[in-house]
């Protein structure tokens, strides 16, 4: 720990003055304006009705819930990256821990934001705490996500206290162990929202939990890498290239584990024949095949860049990280749309404008391509939540003491 931070701080000094200033303020203003625009879109969605979105009875979740999964995943990495070294007393990435935790906090806020904008009646949110039904995986998720957010903030605070010499390292270790457990739980519980109900063949698999953890690890690590490399470039913090290489190798392993889980799931679904074969066909050659193969290609290229030492340069790592994150987003999209793409009762009946997207084409026509496609208002609201996440991130960087400290015990 000590060794790592001192290595980081020596490199940090010469660039200190270049950080902040007009560029940062301008970015904060842009993010704030976009956040407000997003809130305006959300108000439009609530007053004019969710009929303006692409969601319908037979494809009842869309871009918001895709992004919810995605941001829960992103939030994990940061916390796991910063807590694993602390929890297990490894020499880790002490210099970037605080930034990583803050990234987690912002992504968790975005994840909560995406659930809220998806609700039909956000004014009834309070009912969750009054009429709580503890058998609902969504209820579990709300509890765990809330705990996770609070815990991340406590962890960050404890970290700062420890740096000021007012908290023992043992306490930090204890908090980081708890944080790590909750981080892993958050991903599992998010997976259980999809996998516990028997309704959709694609979702109803025990692998969903571990798979979500794997995806969280790869896109979370990738995000931490991008943020830290960007901050190093901006002169905010220093990061030894050795640590970048270590993180990059970890990222490669996580991406491979993610792909491995997908392969296991597809083989188990498709091998024997039966209902699972339909899922495999939908992914590999059906309506979702463009998204599926894009994911495989993105992840394969990402791993290639990360494992070949010659390609593992700073720009190379950034590119590989972006590819990994995009790959995970493709996977989230497949999980969400894929669940609705195969109807259990595929018998035609009365089709109305509220039943399914593209309802004029009749029942079979509606399932020709992807059963769900987002509408402009959804992009507007999504952009707003994304801007809010970036706004929090920038405000934190500006006003919170997240820079690597010179003396951590």
């Amino acid at each position, binding site marked *: 720990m000590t060794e790592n931070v001192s290595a980081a701080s020596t490199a940090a000094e010469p660039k200190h003055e270049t950080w902040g200033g007009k560029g940062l303020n301008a970015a904060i203003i842009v993010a704030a304006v976009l956040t407000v625009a997003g809130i305006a879109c959300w108000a439009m969605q609530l007053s004019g009705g969710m009929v303006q979105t692409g969601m319908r009875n037979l494809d009842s*979740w869309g871009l918001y819930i895709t992004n919810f999964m995605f941001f829960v995943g992103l939030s994990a990495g940061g916390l796991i990256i910063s807590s694993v070294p602390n929890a297990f007393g490894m020499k880790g990435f002490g210099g970037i821990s605080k930034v990583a935790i803050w990234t987690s906090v912002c992504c968790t806020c975005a994840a909560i934001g995406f659930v809220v904008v998806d609700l039909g009646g956000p004014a009834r949110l309070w*009912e969750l705490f009054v009429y709580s039904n503890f058998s609902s995986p*969504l209820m579990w998720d709300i509890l765990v996500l809330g705990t996770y957010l609070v815990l991340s903030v406590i962890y960050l605070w404890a970290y700062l206290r420890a740096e000021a010499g007012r908290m023992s390292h043992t306490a930090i270790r204890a908090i980081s162990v708890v944080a790590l457990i909750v981080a892993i739980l958050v991903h599992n519980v998010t997976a259980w929202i999809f996998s516990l109900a028997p*309704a959709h063949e694609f979702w109803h698999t025990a692998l969903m939990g571990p798979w979500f953890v794997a995806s969280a690890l790869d896109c979370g690590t990738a995000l931490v890498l991008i943020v830290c490399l960007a901050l190093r470039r901006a002169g905010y913090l220093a990061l030894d290239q050795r640590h970048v290489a270590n993180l990059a190798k970890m990222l490669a392993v996580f991406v491979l584990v993610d792909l491995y889980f997908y392969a296991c799931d597809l083989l188990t679904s498709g091998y024997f024949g039966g209902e699972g074969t339909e899922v495999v066909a939908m992914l590999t050659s059906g309506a979702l095949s463009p998204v599926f193969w894009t994911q495989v290609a993105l992840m394969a290229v990402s791993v290639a860049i990360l494992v070949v030492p010659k390609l593992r340069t700073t720009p190379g790592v950034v590119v590989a990280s972006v590819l990994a994150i995009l790959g995970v987003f493709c996977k989230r999209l497949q999980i969400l749309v894929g669940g609705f793409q195969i109807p259990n009762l595929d018998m035609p009946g009365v089709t109305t404008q509220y039943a399914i997207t593209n309802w004029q084409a*009749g029942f079979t026509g509606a399932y020709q391509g992807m059963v769900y496609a987002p509408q402009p208002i959804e992009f507007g609201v999504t952009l707003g939540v994304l801007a809010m996440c970036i706004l929090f991130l920038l405000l934190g960087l500006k006003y919170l003491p997240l820079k690597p400290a010179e003396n951590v015990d």
Partner: protein
Amino acid sequence: MHYGFAIDTKRCIGCHTCAVGCRMENHLPKGIWWNRILTKGGEDMDTPEGIFPDVTMSYVPVACQHCENPACVKACPVGATYKDPETGAVRQDYDKCIGCRMCVAACPYTGVRSFNWAEPEYTIDFECGGQNVPAHQKHTVEKCTMCWHRLAKDEEPMCIRMCPERARYWGDLDDPNSEISKVIREREYMQLLPEKGTKPSVYYLV
């Protein structure tokens, strides 16, 4: 008591009268159908299965299956969808529903749950249907209530009353002497998606 339905698919002619009766009785908004008559086998509604001249036509009326083990009830975070212990009907409380659509995603029976994607609009501009039917609300999930307001008055659900072919049975599955128990005992039947473990309370006589 455990109320259930039995639908004689040999008698059903696909006239949609039960579905329309349901819409009228429950004053359903435009575009919302709690009870839908699905055509078996064809590409589109009312198209036959097979190739001419070897064609057959049959229908599967599908509404909420009022499962004994309902996936929706477990999934709802606020208990807005719940099982009535007295009758076994799966009910929906519009005032509680937060519009998260967990129940829609959890229910294996494609399309039995409807979300009011906009402010409810009606085909006719005055109230119709049964008394004490709760008002439909924008951004809440709804579905067949087994005509809860009629059960409260000891009347049978509207779809049962409307069927011109007398193809629908409804009654207490726990009572061995009820008409529905007898017909299930005597006839061959199938259920929708029994492999999902939801234990539906709707029987299709074949």
